[in-house]
């Protein structure tokens, strides 16, 4: 089972500010995912990333969002200009051998 470490565990920011959430897989993976969970709601797909390119993105993933793998290990989600409705838990996930996803503990984003 792959391990996924996410930082920060909690980020508080002002509306309009840029936020970068980071994900570090313990083992080498090609497929990465970001999901979002607004408090009390279901987990929603944001984007999948394969071989250093976006393979699919949801309608939530608009121009304010971007993903990168800047140094070949860290996997980042950037929100350029945060909005109040971006407040949520953001989960990074990696795929296992059977296609199942293993999630990190999440980064809580609070936009004030």
């Amino acid at each position, binding site marked *: *089972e792959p391990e996924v470490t996410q930082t920060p565990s909690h980020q508080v920011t002002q509306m309009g500010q840029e936020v970068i959430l980071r994900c570090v897989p313990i083992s080498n993976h090609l497929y990465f*995912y970001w*999901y979002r969970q607004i408090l009390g*709601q*279901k*987990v*929603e*797909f944001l984007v*999948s990333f394969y071989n250093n390119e976006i*393979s*699919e993105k949801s309608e939530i993933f608009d121009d304010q969002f971007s993903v990168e793998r800047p140094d070949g290990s860290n996997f980042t989600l950037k929100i350029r200009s945060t909005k109040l409705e971006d407040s949520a*838990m953001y*989960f990074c996930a990696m795929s*296992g051998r*059977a*296609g*199942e*996803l*293993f*999630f*990190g*503990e*999440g980064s809580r984003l609070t936009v004030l």
Partner: protein
Amino acid sequence: GESVGLHLPTLSVQEGDNSIINCAYSNSASDYFIWYKQESGKGPQFIIDIRSNMDKRQGQRVTVLLNKTVKHLSLQIAATQPGDSAVYFCAEALPYNQGGKLIFGQGTELSVKP
């Protein structure tokens, strides 16, 4: 459209009883399903999965049943323990030609009474 939903938002059981959590899916082309457990403040934790060529799969104290005819999925937890208290999500994996991503249901909150 594609959607995965749960019949009951909350379920309360006595410790030691068996729990059954249900899920309905709408995409008949989906070929892979996963149950996740999410404890408060944590990420979804993989419990058990099942492929569409199976009707039943058993793990440790958990069983997943798949009824493709009515597009229904269930998770059975035997001898439910207080540590099982959490929100349980079913997830439907779309075929690779439809993106292959996981679509989550709304979740059922399981509460175990001692």
